[in-house]
């Protein structure tokens, strides 16, 4: 249903965007009204047979009310995205037409461009190109209009069935079950059968099943990802309302921002077009509710039959829902460079501090203890201070223990999805810093991967024993910049995150090389503290390029010795020790970092440190 330019001028695309909010608000009203009705019954002392009847009647009403609310939330989400896309294309097309007319051309209502004056070859060619460009814009607009219109029509059908009292969906073999029963069937069947079961339903019946219990569908392994994405959108919109009412406006705002369109890594930006492109698209999540630091998985980029490689990126310390945007930006760059989707895996809590943050306070306490108790007071207080500081920090392996099983489960879901959508596509798991420890632990628990990259990784896994990746041909790589302080943590004999991936047999250490050239063409080495993560923001860096090559199945560049991994200790040992034969106290601490304990004077035993996996 392609519009003429006159019709397009009449499209109230801003009203489409605005109506998404009113639909969402109406959906919330329905949910609140039904909940209010349920609460008074739940709290009453009414008993007996009549109460059972009332319960049954209200359960039916509640199911229908929730289905209607959730379907409307789905519609609100699709409407917001449709509005954003159509509004963007409408503005681009009409602005372009205005510019062409200002340049003296005529534009017909169907977008044919002509020139009223004498036609020379150049003017004729320019008119032809303008026609082509308007044609391209109208085609893109029409594609978006049809795509969203089709989804909205499906959702309308689901709502119509609900309104007309059709309480069932049709399953394979022609059986009729309620949407709630369909969910129970899905939960009870093998993971491998769920996808086919749900996809065998008609599109509108599928929407009704999703609307019946979006949280379950979003989290059910084996369900196709698009259905889980749709269910997640409903759950996020529901959670936004709940969080606002609970006073958690920050988390609600964060979730709201995730629902807005954002840069899409898929479009080819190497070709510049006069009218411009729609570079934004809907973001896609697997989300089952607000938990801890904000658990979710985001798919950046598109998964389609042409996909040849997929990456799963597990970020490091400090990452949570409110701070994940930097990781998502890196994932977009990775998706664009690998021409495949990248999943940002945040389905769990990562530590939010490195471990040194409380040491200052601990030192103050030690000093205060020294006043009445002397050295006898300092030592235990100092040990307590160190332990307090390390608790819940990057040194704590429990985050990896808790998160790794979810990564294994997600990996199975991903494999199921890939075998259906993009058979033969490879999977690469990239764990950065603490995320490396999560990936390593998942490998210990049986994560299947084609390739694994331990990037500036805290270790090879927090559990006892080796990796149990079921893929015997898995390729493993590590990548740690020289001078990255995490080397100290990796090499500790008591590293809570396992072994040093750079030295682990079967792991190929890769070159981190240099950053991309600056404005003067200079390339700085990836090294030191900044080298722990700076390459994620630099697609021109050798480190980033090596990750891309691994994901794409190309040959990465092996490790090149570009400097010491332990520059502080090396400097102290190489320069100061031979010349002065004396450790000044601050430098002794640096030496301590290298040998993994805190030296105490005299007969006192050294304190074993469990140093944090940085960043």
């Amino acid at each position, binding site marked *: 249903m392609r519009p003429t330019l006159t*019709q397009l001028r009449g499209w109230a695309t801003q009203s489409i965007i605005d109506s998404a909010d009113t639909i969402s608000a109406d959906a919330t009203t329905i949910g609140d009204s039904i909940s*209010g009705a349920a609460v008074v019954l739940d709290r009453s002392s009414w008993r007996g047979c009549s109460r059972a009847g009332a319960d049954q009647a209200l359960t039916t009403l509640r199911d*229908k009310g929730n289905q209607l609310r959730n379907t409307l939330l789905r519609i609100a989400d699709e409407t917001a995205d449709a509005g954003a896309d159509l509004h963007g294309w409408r503005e681009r097309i009409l602005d372009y037409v205005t510019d062409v007319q200002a340049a003296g051309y005529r534009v017909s209502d169907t977008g044919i461009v002509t020139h009223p004056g004498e036609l020379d070859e150049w003017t004729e060619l320019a008119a032809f190109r303008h026609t082509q460009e308007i044609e391209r814009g109208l085609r893109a607009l029409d594609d978006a209009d049809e795509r969203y219109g089709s989804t*909205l029509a499906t959702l309308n059908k689901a709502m119509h069935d609900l309104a007309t009292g059709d309480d069932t969906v049709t399953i394979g073999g022609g059986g009729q079950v309620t949407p709630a029963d369909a969910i129970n069937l899905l939960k009870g069947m093998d993971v491998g059968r769920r996808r086919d079961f749900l996809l065998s339903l008609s599109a509108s019946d599928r929407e009704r099943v999703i609307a019946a219990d979006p949280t379950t569908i979003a989290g059910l392994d084996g369900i196709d990802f698009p259905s889980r994405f749709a269910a997640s959108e409903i759950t996020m919109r529901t959670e936004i309302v709940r969080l606002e009412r609970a006073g958690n406006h920050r988390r609600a705002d964060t979730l709201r921002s995730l629902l807005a369109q954002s840069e899409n890594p898929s479009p080819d930006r190497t070709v510049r077009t006069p009218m411009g492109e729609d570079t934004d698209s809907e973001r896609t999540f697997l989300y089952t509710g607000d938990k801890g630091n904000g658990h979710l998985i985001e798919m950046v980029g598109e998964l389609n039959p042409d996909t040849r490689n997929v990456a799963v990126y597990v970020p490091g310390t400090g990452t949570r829902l409110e701070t994940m945007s930097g990781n998502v930006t890196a994932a977009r760059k990775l998706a664009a460079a690998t021409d495949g989707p990248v999943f940002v895996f945040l389905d769990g809590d990562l530590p939010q501090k490195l471990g040194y943050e409380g040491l200052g306070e601990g030192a103050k306490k030690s000093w205060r203890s020294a006043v009445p108790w002397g050295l006898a007071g300092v030592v235990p207080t100092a040990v307590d201070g160190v332990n307090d500081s390390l608790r819940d920090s990057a040194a704590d392996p429990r985050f990896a223990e808790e998160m790794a099983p979810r990564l294994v489960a997600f990996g199975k879901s991903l494999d199921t999805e890939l075998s259906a959508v993009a058979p033969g596509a490879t999977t690469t798991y990239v764990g950065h810093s603490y995320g490396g420890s999560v990936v390593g632990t998942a490998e210990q628990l049986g994560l299947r991967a084609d390739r694994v990259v331990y990037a500036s990784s805290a270790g090879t896994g927090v559990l006892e024993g080796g990796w149990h990746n079921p893929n015997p041909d898995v390729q493993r790589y590590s990548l740690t910049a020289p001078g990255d302080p995490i080397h100290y943590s990796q090499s500790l004999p008591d590293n809570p995150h396992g072994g040093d991936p750079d030295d682990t047999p079967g792991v190929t250490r890769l070159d981190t090389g240099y950053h991309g050239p600056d404005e003067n063409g200079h390339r700085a080495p990836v090294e030191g503290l900044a080298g722990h993560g700076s390459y994620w923001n630099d697609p021109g860096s050798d480190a980033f390029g090596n990750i891309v090559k691994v994901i794409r199945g190309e040959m990465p560049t092996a490790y090149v010795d570009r400097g010491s991994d332990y520059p502080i200790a090396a400097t102290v040992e190489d320069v100061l020790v031979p010349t002065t034969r004396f450790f000044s106290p601050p430098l002794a601490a640096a030496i301590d970092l290298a040998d993994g304990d805190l030296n105490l004077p005299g007969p006192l035993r050294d304190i074993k440190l469990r140093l944090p996996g940085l960043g």
Partner: protein
Amino acid sequence: MSTHSSLGAAVKAAVHDLLVLDPDEVTAIAARWEHAAEEVGRLAFDPPRRIAGTSSTVIAALHTTGDRAASAADMLAAQLRFTATTCRRAAAELSATDESSCPGINGAG
């Protein structure tokens, strides 16, 4: 005094155990459901219905969305009202039965 009080509480508990339905409470529940029906039935879904534009699948679908959503909300409101009415009737019948039983019980006394 305390024995008297305990006895009163025991009698109240016994009556509570015997009576499964308090007409006043059921009437209040029905009123809440009618209120919910009113809230849901009031939703007009006008904004999507009023979006201007022709030759757009999305805009046409949103016009339909408004109609479908209004129908579904009406259905829900009607069912809420029906359930509330049924409850009110049950409460009224219980009260009437109670009142009609009174003279007989009084006569027996």
